[in-house]
């Protein structure tokens, strides 16, 4: 039995890993040079509590349950997850009504621990909030994580359990026999398939069309962000939402797992042609600035580290579309993966494999006996107690050679990232956080290029930042 998963975002990665728990051949095809670089790379990184989704929605079905799985998942896969809680803040009685509605909705969705707090308590917990705040809905189960790392960790673990990972190949067509997909064609080759799971994010509608399966039309809804320096660590301790409106959860202020402060996102619907254009704009960034200042007036914008944007795969019905195709019987769609997709993904992965494939499609799967659920992260030496770090250096001096100074990443970590599959500057960056700090690679980028050159045995001019044509340096100055 052969399963092909299309797309290495958080959905495809977790589904591929879930499939490797069973006796079958699993292939994950991702068009980028690494996993987790689609929608999964640029979002708010919030593991939502689950009160915003209408109880009858598919989102509600998976959000709170996905949230509940994050604790164990983060331990098994050894990625950062912090259950820091969230506030939705209200500045007047009108907004308080909305908080009450969310509280009720959340309780229906099975979200534990929701309460509405009053001004004094809110300010004692978050002293930097705008003092005009009146109430806040407190959701203790909300958390934060490093979204791309969820995908990377899941794929690393899946590869240990036999996953075949195909990077840099784009799915371009399908070969069907008797209304079932038999082969998946890519830009480079073809893969046999008994089951196909479409997790192509923003492009999942196009993939479904190619296969002749049902789909909902997708368009990008853009969200722009500003990231502030770690110097502001502690400015807010929880995820701070404004009271939501009909179109979005609003522009938030939240801590990132590594200590920065993230501001955003905006919400702007774009035409379909803009699916691959997560560009930032002057107006968007200005809006982020203006709105977040209302929540936290003391935000210091001289400490901007970077700005970026992400695109949500949005559909007219504003809900996930997760179904076995009626027309192509061995094809599963995981589509319209808007927010809270990151949160829902672990629960969706289980649902797809246990209920859709095994029950709905009636494909019996045999559990593997030797599945190893655990994956270990790349050790970040600077976070270890000094005594342990010292012992590591004795074992390998590269653990004592700092390459990225802002985030204190050693040569050992970079070499390990390459050993685990990083082939590009961004591959190293997302796995180690080198070049992610306040100087954005000013000191270490050239050194990382050299390490990549040495470890991969290629010429520096062949090393890419992220994609085939994103070369970094040209030829030699002189031979």
């Amino acid at each position, binding site marked *: 039995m052969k399963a092909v998963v299309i797309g290495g975002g958080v959905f495809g990665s977790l589904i591929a890993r879930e499939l490797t728990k069973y006796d079958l051949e699993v292939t994950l095809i991702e068009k980028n040079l690494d996993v987790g670089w689609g929608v999964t790379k640029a979002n708010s990184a919030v593991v939502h509590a689950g009160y915003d989704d209408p109880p009858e929605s598919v989102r509600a079905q998976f959000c709170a349950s996905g949230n509940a799985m994050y604790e164990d998942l983060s331990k098994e896969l050894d990625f950062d997850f912090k259950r820091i809680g969230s506030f939705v803040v209200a500045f007047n009685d009108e907004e308080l009504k909305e908080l009450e509605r969310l509280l009720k909705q959340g309780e229906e969705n099975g979200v534990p621990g929701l309460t509405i707090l009053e001004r004094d308590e809110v300010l004692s917990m978050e002293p930097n909030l705008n003092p005009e705040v009146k109430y806040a809905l407190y959701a203790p189960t909300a958390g934060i994580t490093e979204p791309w790392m969820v995908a990377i960790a899941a794929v690393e673990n899946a590869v240990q359990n036999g996953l075949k990972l195909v990077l840099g190949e784009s799915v371009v067509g399908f070969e069907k026999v008797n209304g079932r997909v038999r082969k998946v064609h890519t830009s480079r080759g073809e893969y046999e398939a008994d089951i196909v799971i479409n997790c192509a994010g923003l492009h999942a509608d196009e993939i479904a069309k190619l296969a002749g399966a049902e789909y909902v039309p997708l368009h990008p809804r853009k969200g722009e962000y500003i990231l502030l320096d770690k110097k502001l660590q502690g400015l807010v301790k929880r995820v701070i939402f404004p009271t939501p409106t009909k179109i979005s959860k609003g522009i938030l202020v939240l801590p990132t797992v590594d200590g920065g402060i993230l501001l955003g996102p905006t919400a702007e619907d774009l035409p379909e042609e803009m699916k691959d254009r997560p560009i930032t704009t*002057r107006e968007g960034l200005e809006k982020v600035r203006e709105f977040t200042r209302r929540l936290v007036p003391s935000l210091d914008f001289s400490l901007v580290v970077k700005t970026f944007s992400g695109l949500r795969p949005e559909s007219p019905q504003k809900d996930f579309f997760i179904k076995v195709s009626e027309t192509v019987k061995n094809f599963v769609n995981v589509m319209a993966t808007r927010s809270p997709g990151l949160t829902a993904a672990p629960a969706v992965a289980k649902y797809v494999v246990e209920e859709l494939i095994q029950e709905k499609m009636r494909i019996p799967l045999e559990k593997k006996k030797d599945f190893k659920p655990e994956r270990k992260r790349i050790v970040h030496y600077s976070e270890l107690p000094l005594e342990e770090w010292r012992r590591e250096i004795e074992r390998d001096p*590269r653990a*004592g*050679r700092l390459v990225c100074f802002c985030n204190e990443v050693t040569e050992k970590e970079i070499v390990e990232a390459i050993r685990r599959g990083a082939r590009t500057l961004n591959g190293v960056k997302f796995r180690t956080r080198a070049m992610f700090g306040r100087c954005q*690679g*000013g000191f270490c980028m*050239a050194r990382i290029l050299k390490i990549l050159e040495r470890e991969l045995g290629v010429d*520096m001019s062949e090393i890419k930042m992220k994609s085939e044509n994103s*070369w970094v*340096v040209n030829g030699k100055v002189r031979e």
Partner: protein
Amino acid sequence: MRVDVMVIGAGAAGMAAALKAKEEGAEVLLVERDERTGGILNQCIHNGFGLHYFRQELTGPEYAERFQEKMEKMGIRALTNAYVKRVEDRRVILVTEQGIEEVEVGALVYATGARERPFGSLMIPGDRPSGIFTAGVAQRLINIENRLPGKRALILGSGDIGLIMARRLTLEGMEVVGVVERLPYAGGLLRNVIQCLEDYNIPLYLSSTVVEVRGRERLEEVVVAKVDEQFRPIPRTERVFKVDTLVLSVGLIPQVELIENLVVKNPTSRGVGVSNIGQTSRDWIFSAGNCTVIFDLVDYVSYEGETAGRYAAKFVKGEIPREKIPVRPGKNVMVVHPIWYTPAEPLTLYLRVKKPMEKGRLVVGRFAREFEDLVPSEMLRVKISDRDLEGLDEIVVSVEEVN
């Protein structure tokens, strides 16, 4: 381990400090996180270094080499690939390939230099392609790694570094289509505008800035627009440059992070605040070089490094006067350094004015002198004698515009 004086950072400031501390009789340890000593000098292979200090025009590596030779002669211990992780109360945690060591210090000279302001912090809208480099990265790639960053470049920022990079890229065979500057005048020295741009027919676009970068993979286009007096882009003045490389030279930021929680900062430079003998608000920590204020000339950095090193050694011997008279900026002064005056030494003041002035009168205590052609980008250096400062309990530095 224990040393009298530890110097963090082996750039122009740190090497000078180590030498003087040693001359003063202290036992010195110099630590540097990079593979070699010299700091930023190593990658500055153009000349223009040392005119004051050596009365001779040297390249950056030559300038560094002179100090390195002296250090060797004096038998100064310099540890490279040695990263300072933490500075605590008179203790420094050092990470090297040999292990992790806690060093007890009598005094510290903090000379960690500056880092470049990166692209991300400029909030320039658009795509996030490859091909955008800070001047330092481009310089390092070319001069140390022997690699060209691209084929066709635009440069943002016309300070001396941006100007020098325009020439370097041209000489190495890249096409430089222009230098963009948001001020109405060039940020660097007139000499550099002529020698680096005019001699090579590279256009300078003043009162302009980059408003967008385009390119899904590698950089393809950079959009430049005119700006008004508040540096806001003026609509419909956009102009598109087809380039694969954008080099940013938009300012240096003093690196203060390691001791930020231990010392008072200089509010005008955002660097480590020091007195004219290089002492910070914490009596055992001294500091010099670009981590205190961004200097125009390496010569000044070395002078300041020497002072800090000498007084750090004196501090260990208990020979330091305690008095610290505050120095603060007055009218038309944007940056002033140092922020305290200790009467043990004459006051060498460094300052930058807020706006260009044809003629300005600098007033400090009883001292007054007129200067011509003052611009914010050029640092003024003035020695002020003890007599002019006698009896003051605060020293205000101001510049009156003279018509």
